[in-house]
């Protein structure tokens, strides 16, 4: 009898296989958990991979200090429910004591790299799970599932390890670490279809709601502690939702009536804009913006 798996079962099985390989070969893995949909899916996969045991590694949040309240609440609730250990790499404290300087535009995404690398070094994490997907961006399309980082956290796109079959080589130099991307082969729509199939809980901001927003550089931003509209930027009440969750200063809302998973999936399937194109200001800087930030140690 022949049986062929659906593509979603194949993606799930592949991600679980990757997580189990990491657990089998590394001393101190950690899972990056922002409370966003990709990290929620990652945690869900980790629970399934190791059930009925608990997830055998801690989670870490790189906190820019510009968080959506709903996302922080979600993060803390999930961590408590699963009895996970949470590490927070805190960008705000770096700014407070002068180790990092606030940028003129108030954007903190580029500031995440140093606290992340310091936390990896301090806790001696040797494998860091990220929810990055190859469909997100051109430079990510060339990233391996196991991505080597040197002691400065740098990615060298010209010198990546060949990755064949399902054989992952996690050997790394002392002081270096490996970034692991189990969702490499997933697309945005796959993530949403999986969330629906598995009933994965998400922060409420992914669904349509009314919010005060103002337009900057073509994006709907929400005012908050991170910053306020300037004189010529009018605040309006709009019905919006978020396609990605990141730093409030550079994560835009999209106008949307999609209030349920089914409606979100229908909206994404019909969308003519990528999720980063619709909601991330930081990738619009240059043709190679993501490649440059990844080289420096960003996810």
């Amino acid at each position, binding site marked *: *009898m*022949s*049986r*062929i*798996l*659906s*593509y979603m*079962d*194949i993606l799930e*099985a*592949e991600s*679980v*296989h990757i997580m*189990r*390989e990491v*657990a*089998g*070969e590394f001393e101190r893995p950690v899972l990056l958990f922002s409370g966003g949909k990709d990290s929620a899916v990652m945690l869900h996969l980790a629970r*399934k*991979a*190791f*059930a*009925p*045991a608990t997830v055998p590694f801690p989670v870490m949040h790189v906190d820019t200090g510009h968080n959506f309240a709903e996302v922080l609440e979600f993060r803390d609730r999930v961590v408590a429910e699963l009895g996970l250990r949470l590490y927070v790499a805190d960008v705000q404290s770096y700014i407070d004591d002068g180790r990092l300087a606030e940028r003129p535009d108030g954007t903190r995404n580029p500031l995440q790299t140093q606290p992340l690398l310091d936390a990896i070094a301090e806790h001696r994490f040797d494998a860091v799970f990220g929810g990055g997907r190859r*469909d997100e*961006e*051109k*430079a*990510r*399309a*060339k990233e391996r599932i196991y991505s080597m980082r040197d002691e400065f956290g740098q990615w060298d796109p*010209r010198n*990546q390890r*060949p*990755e*064949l*079959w*399902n*054989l992952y*080589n996690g*050997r790394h*130099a002392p002081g270096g670490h490996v970034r692991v991307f189990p969702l490499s*082969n997933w*697309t945005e*729509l796959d993530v949403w*279809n999986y969330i*629906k*199939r598995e009933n994965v809980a998400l922060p409420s901001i992914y669904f349509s709601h009314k919010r005060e927003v103002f337009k900057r550089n073509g994006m709907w931003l929400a005012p908050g502690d991170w910053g306020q509209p300037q004189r010529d930027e009018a605040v309006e009440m709009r019905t919006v939702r978020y396609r990605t969750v990141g730093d409030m200063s550079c994560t835009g809302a999209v106008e949307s009536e999609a209030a349920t998973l*089914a409606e979100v*999936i*229908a909206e994404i*399937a019909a969308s*003519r*804009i*990528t999720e980063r*194109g*619709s909601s991330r200001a930081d990738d619009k800087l240059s*043709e*190679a913006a993501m*490649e440059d930030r990844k080289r420096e140690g960003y996810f």
Partner: protein
Amino acid sequence: MNETTSHTRLLRLATAGSVDDGKSTLVGRLLYDSKSVLADQLEAIEFASRARGSQNADLALLTDGLRAEREQGITIDVAYRYFATPRRRFILADTPGHVQYTRNMVTGASTAQLAIVLVDARKGIVEQTRRHIAVAALLRVPHVVLAVNKMDLVEFSLQRFHEIVEEFTVVADSLGVTSHTAIPLSALNGDNVVTASENMPWYHGPTLLSHLEEVEVGDDLSTQPGRFPVQSSFSPSARPDWAASRCFGFGLPGTYVAGQVAAGTFSVGQTVTVMPHGTRTVIEAIDQLGGDATDAVAGQSVTIHLFDTAAAERGDLIAAVNDTPHVGEEIVATVCHLSERPLRPGQAVLMKYASKTLEARVEQLIDQLDLATTHREGQPQQLVVNDIATVRLRTAQPVAVDSYRKNRITGSFILIDPGDGQTLTAGMVESVSTVQKEPS
């Protein structure tokens, strides 16, 4: 695309050909015409194309993601692309064609069920094409599509197409490609990529995309002999938190092994052999990521409850009793050398296969494949990057492996530099045997 896609089948494919053949343009065309390119991506490449002085959007820019690639106008690394039609989901490994990037094509082809080899209709089958077909054959990609591109530049000539197909068929057959198809097209204008060409009324076959949607690649592993590499194992006594769990019989004595089924089907009640020891045990229960199941098939990640305690550990291979893999310390394999650092006889390496890593030594470089002539020739002194050769290895302990011909997962391995952890070589097992002990 809608929810029904969750039941859709997946096809993994690799493309090979150089930028001169229009490979990136073809891939861009597939993505563009299947409506997988979104407005902001198109806007970005239109902007970049204009900056380079080009009138039309250069579709190749969709795939050449690294700065160096765009600057040099070539594909350097494997890029993975995702697209879907209502009939199938595709994961496309877009690989570079130049000889110095053979290792990247090997990487892309290692997981592919189908390879598209691209040729320029004006040039026909050139040395590079032979090399691409040889790599696809070596990696045992189940189906090869010859995409004869730039038909517009040979006046859409049926005769020219036939000449190329004839030559291709001879080469493919001699290299052992069992299943192949040739399609005439023009990626630049879209002829026969997604929509049927009006310029080639003599061609009655499918367009490239409809062929990709429909082709049966014949690589169903679920009917092969059972293979389950163990990724981790636990006994309930070692996990007191499990003893209290009522989930999937956890807490019962025995051994719980987690892994992904590499081939075949395993069922509850089945007697299995744990390799390389050869001990037998029985499957008590199977958990498919949270759901009790009666069986597990190739591709599924599951947890299996074995009857005996300490029955298996990470690195072991659980196999069907009637067809177990061979066990030995001496492996003859075809390898593709991936590293800038040469591989030499006597060299100490680490070998990773399935879920096991162990020490090994390169005993002998037996012969080397000349990709231009596709002949194997005698005893190289060392292997340099992109070399393909037959080698003999000796492992520190007996290993249970299949021939790559039989199973692409349990018959493949990588060699790792024990010093700095670099991946040196990719290997495909031809045979395994026990070392003959010298009589004392």
